[in-house]
């Protein structure tokens, strides 16, 4: 098994699990729950290995005080990192407890039985318990990375459906989001942003400032950073509008509204060849020669616009600055990285910053969470001793979250007379997908925090280097899983683009899989091949094949959809290393070129399934979110700023286009866990496009697939 970074960084059992004298088992992890219910799955693993009832488990919300530090919650890594760490911690703890019990009861460990933490010696019927043996005491041992874990056949908790831990609180309104927190003496705050990213504060109407001050508001200003605080939240919302009216801004430049595809393919860029999923140095190879006698030979360009995370709850944070430092409650996905960048920005010793994770609205990546935490911290620092609950408005969230970058994918390839895919080339053009506030060279981390860009002393913005990790950002799923000889794969990190961009669920994989799985269907159609057969013939991995076969069987023959409907499917293994997912879609396109989703089959193989309810939710939810990206979403902007500032100017999917969804889990007992949070998204986009083509004869290559886009595609086809 690959190295588990969470265990390497936090090898001590006490960092993860402790046992109380009153019979509870406290589990700490460094990955955060963001609606994906990771803590529900991890709690099951702990209870399973320890042989205790699930109700004894208390999951702690991560903070930077007690650890463990597991870095960022991202990349569908949590089951493999936290999940395996806690599983081994549970197994280590159980072995340790049985050794203690054996001494206490004077028998061999093999002569002991455990039931819900009560340990019985078979020979003497004498009894002790975890709480007697270990209550409120440190284990003082490292986690045994070779500790035997329970084989699937002996498990009683994992793999069985049960509701997530926090659902009862969610449905009764008791689940506390950071937005809901309250503290004695707390003030509410709102930031006031410039009209766009290049604008800076020229002046503030001092008369208005005086009026606000007389009415009990405090305005915090540092350079072009502006915020207002007060005791009544609604009054603060109105004061922020007043403050915005009182501000004059200047700008040296505007947003570049040149066609984004022209910018992506024409701007200065850093290009790298990608081999086995990893970017490598060296010259960019020429296009592969196309052998004579091909059955089909094609080239196509696919495009997708900037899209947003679009959290339903705008970003927020609570901060308090005191003599003992700065304390922040945040829905950031990476409290340790945020802490390090804040310490650097504020020139504070890192121990003086204490960050606590608290639930936010689902974020699906790097949304405004970290930036809002900095906003709150800046205001709290200016008002020592006063807790500050700062929230963004809907317009703030839409206009200022880091977007997922627009992308262009250029593919070409052919099919030989014997049906083999050949001469494959896939080039992807994109801005960075990874602008999280990760500290590095001086100023790198802070420069990625939006509010820092507006301060008097602004950290220099360093252009992000290319991500060189396996299936990193732009080149995530650029490499096809299909057996294709010497594919030419090129990533282009494009500079000078108009918007700040960072990680959204799947990073580059959504657009890459949309393009490559559309192109496979285009090739199949051009060669007169069946798209399912073409895929299966080029896949060696039986688990990949099983997913495709599962959806193909259940959706029915692609060319035999009911009158007026079209069927399409697509496949991907996320990062060619995580969960395998195939998606089949049946849809109808009406006379106004609107797409109506009718029926969907999803087949997923996430290795051994710990929490089927959670995996199904991730697959279904990921399908619906990616269907929304595919059908509706594009960030709009003009020279003087973002124009997508609410849900009317940035529409997302609603209840009027939700298909019947059948989800099939291909469980693999005793196989490794494979992260499942993102795997469905890429195949979703391509399956919809392929179904549109089979329904209408129109091949859509530009997202989103709005009626206008479909009509344009019909003309250009």
């Amino acid at each position, binding site marked *: 098994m690959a190295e588990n970074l969470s265990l390497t960084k936090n090898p001590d059992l006490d960092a993860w699990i402790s046992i109380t004298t009153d019979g509870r088992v406290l589990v700490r992890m460094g990955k955060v729950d963001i609606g994906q219910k990771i803590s529900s799955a991890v709690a099951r693993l702990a209870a399973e290995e320890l042989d205790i009832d699930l109700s004894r488990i208390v999951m702690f919300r991560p903070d930077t005080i007690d650890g463990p530090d597991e870095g960022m919650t991202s990349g569908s890594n949590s089951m493999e990192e936290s999940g395996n760490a806690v599983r081994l911690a549970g197994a280590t703890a159980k072995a340790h407890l049985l050794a203690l019990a054996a001494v206490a009861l004077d028998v061999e460990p093999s002569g002991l039985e455990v039931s819900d933490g009560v340990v019985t010696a078979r020979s003497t019927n004498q009894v002790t318990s975890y709480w007697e043996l270990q209550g409120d005491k440190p284990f003082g041992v490292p986690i045994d990375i070779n500790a035997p874990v329970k084989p699937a056949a002996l498990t009683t908790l994992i793999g069985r459906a049960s509701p997530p831990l926090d659902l009862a609180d969610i449905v009764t309104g008791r689940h506390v989001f950071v937005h809901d927190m309250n503290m004695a003496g707390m003030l509410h705050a709102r930031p006031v942003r410039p009209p766009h990213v290049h604008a800076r504060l020229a002046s503030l109407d001092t008369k208005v400032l005086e009026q606000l001050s007389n009415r009990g508001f405090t305005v915090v200003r540092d350079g072009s950073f502006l915020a207002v605080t007060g005791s009544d939240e609604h009054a603060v919302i109105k004061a922020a509008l007043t403050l915005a009216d009182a501000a004059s801004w200047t700008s040296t430049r505007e947003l570049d509204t040149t066609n984004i595809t022209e910018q992506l393919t024409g701007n200065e860029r850093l290009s790298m060849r990608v081999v086995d999923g990893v970017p490598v140095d060296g010259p960019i190879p020429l296009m592969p020669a196309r052998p004579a006698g091909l059955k089909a030979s094609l080239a196509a360009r696919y495009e997708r616009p900037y899209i947003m995370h679009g959290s339903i709850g705008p970003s927020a944070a609570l901060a308090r600055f005191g003599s003992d430092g700065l304390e922040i409650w945040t829905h950031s996905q990476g409290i340790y990285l945020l802490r390090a960048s804040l310490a650097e920005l504020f020139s504070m010793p890192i121990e003086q910053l204490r960050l606590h994770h608290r639930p*936010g609205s689902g974020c699906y990546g790097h949304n405004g969470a970290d930036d809002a935490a900095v906003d709150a911290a800046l205001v709290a620092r200016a008002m020592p001793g006063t807790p500050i609950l700062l929230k963004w408005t809907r317009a703030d969230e839409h206009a200022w979250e880091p977007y997922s970058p627009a992308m262009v994918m250029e593919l070409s390839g052919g099919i030989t007379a014997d049906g083999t895919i050949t001469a494959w080339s896939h080039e992807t053009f994109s801005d960075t997908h990874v602008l999280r506030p990760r500290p590095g060279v001086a100023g790198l981390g802070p420069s990625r925090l939006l509010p820092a860009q507006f301060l008097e002393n602004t950290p220099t913005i360093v252009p992000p280097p290319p991500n060189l990790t396996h299936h990193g950002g732009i080149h995530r799923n650029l490499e096809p899983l299909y057996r294709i000889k010497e594919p030419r794969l090129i990533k282009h990190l494009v500079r000078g683009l108009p918007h700040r961009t960072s990680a959204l669920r799947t990073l580059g994989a959504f657009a890459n899989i949309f393009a490559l799985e559309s192109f496979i269907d285009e090739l199949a159609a051009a060669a007169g091949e069946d798209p399912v057969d073409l895929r299966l013939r080029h896949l060696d991995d039986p688990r990949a094949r099983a997913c495709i076969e599962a959806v193909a069987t259940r959706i029915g023959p692609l060319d035999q959809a009911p009158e007026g409907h079209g069927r399409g499917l697509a496949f991907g293994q996320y990062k060619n290393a995580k969960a395998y997912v195939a998606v089949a879609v049946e849809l109808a396109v009406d006379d106004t070129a609107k797409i109506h989703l009718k029926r969907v089959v999803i087949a997923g193989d996430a290795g051994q399934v710990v929490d089927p309810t959670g995996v199904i939710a991730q697959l279904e939810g990921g399908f*619906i979110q990616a269907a929304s990206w595919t059908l509706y979403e594009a960030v709009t902007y003009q020279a003087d700023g973002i124009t997508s500032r609410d849900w009317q100017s940035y529409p997302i999917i609603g209840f009027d286009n939700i298909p019947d969804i059948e989800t099939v889990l291909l469980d693999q007992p005793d196989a490794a866990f494979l992260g499942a949070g993102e795997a469905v998204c890429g195949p979703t986009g391509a399956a919809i496009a392929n179904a549109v083509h089979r329904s209408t004869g129109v091949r859509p290559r530009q997202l989103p697939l709005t009626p206008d886009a479909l009509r344009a595609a019909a003309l250009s086809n």
Partner: protein
Amino acid sequence: MLSLTLKINGATHHLAAESDTPLLQVLRNQLGLTGGKLGCGLEQCGACAVLVDGESRLSCVAAASEFQNKDIVTIEGLAGEGGLSSVQRAFVAETAAQCGYCTPGMIIAVTGLFRKIPQPNDAQVQDALADHLCRCGSHARILAAIDRLRREV
């Protein structure tokens, strides 16, 4: 400042608010009823829905003063002595939530729908949820919860 009398979850509250303070702000910040969420403040997302005389209404814009002499029920007021309401139970049974930010509004909307129409058809379901957004993609689970309720009636 206006003096207001609001009946919320069966209790009468006397309080003061500005004439334009939205009901949601009064619920959350004066009464500590934070189950209803501020998602947009524009009546576009539905996270702030409450029951007003049994009907689902958005509370993020309309002033609290407009709700005097009406019977307001928030998400906190749905569960009774018998435990969760039938709608809440259906949401749990179908795992009809991920992050949970939109969920209170969804549950209120569905509760309002079934109070008005005990056996709603699909068009009536669509109509009741038209103002409600979810980003996690729990829609299919929420529709499954509604199907469960239709079967129970």
